[in-house]
């Protein structure tokens, strides 16, 4: 095990978007489940509407 391989926990593997540990107390926090639920609902809603229109 390389002990020197300390590239820091900051970077994600495709670090196009960087997330740091510090967060502002003012920020709105979203639960990860909310993100998934929103995605599923959006998909289902659009699909249902498409079926209703056709």
């Amino acid at each position, binding site marked *: *095990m*390389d*002990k*020197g*391989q*300390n*590239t*820091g*926990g*900051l*970077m*994600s*593997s*495709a*670090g*196009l*978007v*960087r*997330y*740091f*540990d*510090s*967060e*502002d107390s*003012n*920020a*709105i*926090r*979203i*639960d*990860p489940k909310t*993100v*998934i639920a*929103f*995605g*599923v609902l*959006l*998909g289902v809603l*659009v*699909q249902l*509407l*498409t079926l*209703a*229109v056709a």
Partner: protein
Amino acid sequence: MGWKEAAEPVLTRMPAVRRPEGHVPFKRKLAWTAGILVLYFFLTNIALLGLQTGEASDLFGEFRSILAGQQGSLLQVGIGPIVTASIVLQLLGGANLLGLDTDDPRDQVLYQGLQKLLVIVMVVLTALPMVFAGGFLPAQSSLQLGGLSLGQTGVQLLLFAQIFAGGVLILYMDEVVSKWGVGSGIGLFIIAGVSQKLVTGLIQPSTGGFFYNWYAIITGQITVGSIVGGDGLSTLLLGEGQIVALVTTVLIFGIVVYAESVRVEIPLSHARVKGARGRFPVKLIYASVLPMILVRAVQANVQFMGQILQSQWAGMPAWLGVYSEGQPVSGLFYYLAPIYSPQDWMWWTGAVTQEWWMVLIRVAIDVTVMVAGGAIFAIFWVETTDMGPEATARQIQNSGMQIPGFRQNVGVVEKVMERYIPQVTVIGGALVGLLAVMANMLGTIGAVTGTGLLLAVSITYKLYEEIAEEQLMEMHPMMRQMFGNE
């Protein structure tokens, strides 16, 4: 420092996904990652409401394979806006115009907020021309929604709203994977898209699928001319036989996995604990393949501009661009378009309508852009992601290690790092650029493009390393302290 104070109220309030408290078990991490992946595939299969069927042409064109998403679906924009926003941030950060110190917690919050805001702006900027300009996403002329009747503009607004929601959703899906899962969402979506194309290109049961084509060749449904004299050899190698594409694909896999292990190792020893030794690896593709996506995205954005200009400006001069069936065939935009396949440049086969010297200019521009761009973006990347000599020296110092034979001092470690990191970064970036162009010129299975393949292989490799590390930490809780994540 004026802009920081002015923007602070907005930037600090950007909604963010909650961080997990404490350690997330590895199985839970995998579950989140898998959940997001399933959601991604689900959303790429939901067609936009109000879209006229069968007439859309993909604005992303050949760049689709690296920008993920799906034409005509809720995930129309894919990771395009995220990549574009990242370029802007890289350039601003690389030129040190932001004045943000990513070690300062307050600046970190601002950076995160700015990043998010930029992505949302880019979603709007990408979605607007898609819906309102040209025939990229033709809206239905009217739509009955229950009692509500929408005209053309109404339907366009509805389309825009859906694309916008999808684009923002991708950003948050990435955040969920980054904070709760393994790897990053963007990496995941790129692998998902490329793998899907690769597998389709191999086994699809219609013309174009590798195995189907060979079945057809053997059963005589595709006629192959004489191998010795005629064009039979060319058909087998470059045409329907796709042998060169197969070889290129396998070769890229091999080269990337090999290059991942090529490194300069700087020996380290612990200052206090005698005998505790380590190595700091400076990898050949140190800055990884990711800067490549930024170069490609610059090219993609230039091509969008061409497409939009062409659809909006009837009197576009010929030197700027001449289009045929949505593709530039001459003019500036032709020369700036990257090579996607052998059919784009092998002028002797007769598949190319341009003169040979035009093709050569285009190839030369593509190679130059990719090699130079790859090197430049790799340098920016190293700087902005804290992989530069200064940042790594600090990390080594903080972990209590030193380079044997040198004083234990940040400046000394930095000097040694400066001998390797910049050179390796530039060589690696240029090499990866060259590799991507070559792979595109020779073609790949399923037309995933060289960049797509490079990205997919190196992200998968990184993911593998990360999973191995996770499992190690799972088995030895002590390791967690060593890696710094509780």
